[in-house]
């Protein structure tokens, strides 16, 4: 039997949760959580370095029977589409632990257990090769996330946690029925690869497409199913926001890539214009809402809706540029928006205010903080030389090739993002140092820098040299498009 690297990656955080439960002091809990998440990062790097970029096959595959009577297996594997997310999830796991180091000061142990459990489930989602396993992980995440928002969140946390829980639950239940229908259509199998090879009649594809769409669109989130997101983000503790924006939102888009496109190719092609239109709507609408915000966290939350619109736009452009761009953009969004939430969290810890109006001239008081903030703001608005520029350029090229009008609408979103991000930065960082008079703000310390630096490295690395990242994605994207276009040419 081969070395079970993926199982190890998935279960190291769970083991960490078990260990953390036994510890007594908060300090020990923090260090143990950090240790286990760092170990997970190391394992993820080992996985990436052993990854064969020339192949579109699933790699590091493991398969064990789980419920033989229903032919459910415990099957893991990664291809170019999931490999990057496994790494991203592991990376953001350590960042979240660092981000909650002092921000979480009560029930530290329980918090870290939730965080680590969350990590195992997220990694399970990205590596599952069995639809049942995928669904179990996908749905089980509701429990720790509900607690993270509801127990450690802000004043309106209970409402936000309920809303998050019920939206996602209601969305994914239809998906569950879809999964069971697929199981029978595929001749009683949950094997994802076998299901991809199915040739379903168009009406069934169509039905399944919408059942899946509800689940994935809630997670992305696409307008008009997005209203849970600002509430959840604003109320969640910093680590919760990082996980939400960095990983959770990716799962909806990942669902489109992993299930909708290859399993329902005809429906995906048929409804691609509709999906692109919804994406363009999300880009512009999210941007406009972000423009109107005074709350820092809300601004970043709405910008997420806009940015995730680019991701779904790229996916349903159904061409190589769009698809590559959207996968890369998902990774970028995880890094950049994760970082922005971290920055909001850092300043909130110091001042207990998230209102943009309370700030001004932060640069004079905290130069390192504002310097890095500038980098991530520029990355978020996709300035050349940063990661998002590469991704957004690819997505827009793909989008224009697929549909000129909708591509043009999406460009508007890029303009809007420059407006709200630069506006925010000007009000917060530049001008006379009014913030210093109001609050006592110290600059970032060493621990915080440790959390920020890797994210900054990825912003520039992808920005200047995206080749290794695109190489990981490339063969899988080609293979996926082949799957779609071979069988997807209209009903």
């Amino acid at each position, binding site marked *: 039997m081969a070395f079970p690297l993926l199982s190890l990656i998935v279960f190291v955080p769970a083991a960490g949760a078990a260990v953390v439960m036994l510890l007594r002091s908060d300090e020990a809990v923090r260090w143990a959580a950090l240790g286990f998440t760092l170990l997970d990062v190391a394992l993820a790097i080992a996985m990436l370095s052993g990854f064969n970029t020339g192949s579109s096959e699933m790699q590091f595959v493991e398969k064990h029977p789980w*419920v033989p009577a229903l032919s459910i297996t415990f099957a893991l594997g990664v291809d170019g589409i999931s490999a990057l997310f496994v790494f991203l999830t592991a990376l953001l796991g350590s960042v979240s632990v660092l981000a909650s180091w002092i921000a979480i000061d009560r029930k530290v142990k329980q918090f870290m257990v939730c965080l680590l459990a969350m990590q195992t489930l997220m990694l399970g989602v990205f590596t599952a090769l069995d639809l049942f396993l995928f669904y179990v992980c996908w749905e089980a995440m509701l429990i720790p996330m509900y607690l993270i928002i509801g127990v450690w969140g802000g004043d309106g946390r209970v409402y936000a*946690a309920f809303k998050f829980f*019920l939206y996602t639950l209601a969305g994914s239940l239809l998906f569950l029925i879809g999964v069971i229908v697929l199981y029978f259509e595929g001749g009683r199998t949950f094997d994802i690869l076998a299901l991809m090879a199915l040739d379903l009649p168009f009406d069934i594809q169509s039905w399944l497409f919408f059942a899946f769409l509800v689940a994935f669109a809630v997670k992305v989130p696409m307008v008009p199913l997005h209203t849970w997101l600002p509430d959840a983000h604003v109320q969640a503790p910093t680590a919760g926001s990082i996980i939400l924006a960095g990983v959770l939102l990716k799962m909806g888009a990942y669902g489109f890539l992993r299930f909708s496109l290859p399993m329902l190719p005809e429906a995906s092609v048929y409804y691609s214009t509709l999906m692109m239109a919804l994406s363009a709507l999300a880009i512009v609408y999210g941007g406009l809402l972000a423009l109107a915000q005074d709350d820092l966290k809300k601004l970043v939350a709405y910008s997420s809706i806009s940015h995730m619109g680019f991701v779904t736009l790229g996916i349903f452009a159904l061409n190589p540029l769009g698809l590559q761009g959207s996968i890369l953009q998902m990774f970028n969004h995880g890094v950049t928006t994760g970082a922005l939430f971290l920055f909001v969290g850092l300043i909130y810890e110091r001042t207990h205010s998230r209102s943009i109006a309370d700030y001004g001239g932060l640069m004079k008081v905290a130069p390192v903080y504002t310097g890095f903030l500038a980098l991530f703001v520029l990355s978020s608005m996709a300035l050349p030389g940063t990661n998002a520029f590469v991704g957004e350029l690819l997505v827009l090229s793909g989008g224009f090739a697929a549909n000129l009008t909708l591509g043009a609408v999406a460009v508007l979103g890029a303009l809007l993002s420059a407006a709200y991000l630069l506006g925010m930065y000007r009000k917060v960082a530049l001008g006379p140092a009014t913030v210093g008079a109001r609050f006592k703000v110290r600059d970032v310390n060493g621990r915080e820098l440790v959390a920020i630096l890797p994210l900054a490295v990825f912003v520039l690395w992808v920005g200047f040299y995206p080749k290794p990242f695109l190489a990981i994605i490339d063969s899988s994207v080609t293979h996926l498009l082949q799957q779609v276009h071979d069988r997807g040419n209209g009903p």
Partner: protein
Amino acid sequence: MTAAALLASILVSLPEIIVIVGSSILLIGGQLLPKGKDALLVWASVAVVLLAALATFTLSGGAEPAYAGMFVADPFSIFFKSLFYLSILLTFLLSRNYADIEGIGGSEYYVLLLLALAGMMIMASATDLLSIYVGLELMVLCTYVLTGFLRRQQRSNEAALKYVILGAVSTGIFLYGVSLVYGLTGTTQLDRMAAAVGNDPLDQGLLLAVVFIVAGLVFKIGAVPFHMWVPDVYEGAPTTITAFMSVGPKAAGFAVILRVFLNPLVASSNVWIILAVIAVVTMALGSFVALVQDNFKRLLAYSSIAHAGFAILGIVAGGADGIASVMLYLLIYTFMNLGIFGAVIMMRNGNFSGEVIEDYSGFAKLHPGLALLMLLYLFSLAGIPPTAGFFAKFYVLVALVERGFVLLAVIAVLLSAVAAYFYIRIVMVMFMREPVRAFEPALTPLVGITLAVTAAGTIGIGLFPAWFLKLAQQSAFGG
């Protein structure tokens, strides 16, 4: 009946005989027991159940008909009997301390539970409408008395009275259906009924008879439109009895329904439409009305109505998978529901009732471990993976979709999203509110064992459902 056939029949029904003889001995012995030796009663009752279980498992094999076709010991009945043993054993463990606090100790309590168990066992094995009736009455008569066991409490008396009157009416309806069947076919045996009707499954008279029988049975599992007694009886009865009634007698009711409904005669008629409607309405009513409950026991009553509705969907699906899905559902429900009731019973201490949901404010802060356990049961009841409750629902949905009832499956999952709300509301109260007052749960070792067993079942079946699924599939008939 020859002596040899009689002996064989007695052997097949040995577990029932053990329970009945054991309870009779306990009834007499309990009167002679000096005060303060109540613990002995618990252990004696447990011993009787274990003895019966032993007899059941040594008898296990193929289907053994007995008493001229009125009774059978087959894997199906053994599965249900095991489930009954499990639920009654856990009830005994929960009862000891609770009975002390409420002052309802005494041998009658345990004897009545044992007799109810005997009734349930007969129901699981009965293959004749008359033997079903005997088992059913034995069971419900005991639960009527147990419901009113808190003699000094008005609501307990009221609940018992309500239960007796409504129960008697439903029994009358059931018997009327039985007499119609006998009049039309000349038999009350389930397998001969089908043969007697021959090739006219849509006989109007027979359909009417079936409707009456349905009505009688549906009452026992608390499905709409015969659900009205459930919240009042659940609230009024001693909590241990509520816990027991929500799993044991309910499972017995389902055992009978499965036997009657998957009889070829009934299966070939269109009775599934009635059942589908009952299932959907039951789920909807249970879920929506539970949303506004403040009393934990009432909430669990409505939750159990909703769960009954979900399980009925498995009967609608029919076939071997459908039957197995109901059986697995009931097994899992036993674990998670006894778990949550165990937690509620544990709260009853001193002047603290633990019945109002608001009482649980900040429970997680005071008792993190116990709160985590309750969280487990609640999420399982809501059907969130990786708990067993998810797998129970999943398997019912699989059976439904297999038979092409996709729309029913969609309705079922949407209604369970509604139901999820009130379970996570309790989680919210426990984890996200500040404690109002401190209280010490009555966590005796026996209650601890119950919670440990139910927690192990709730998470264990969720993570490793394979063995239990196989057990249910092998015990289902009709495959």
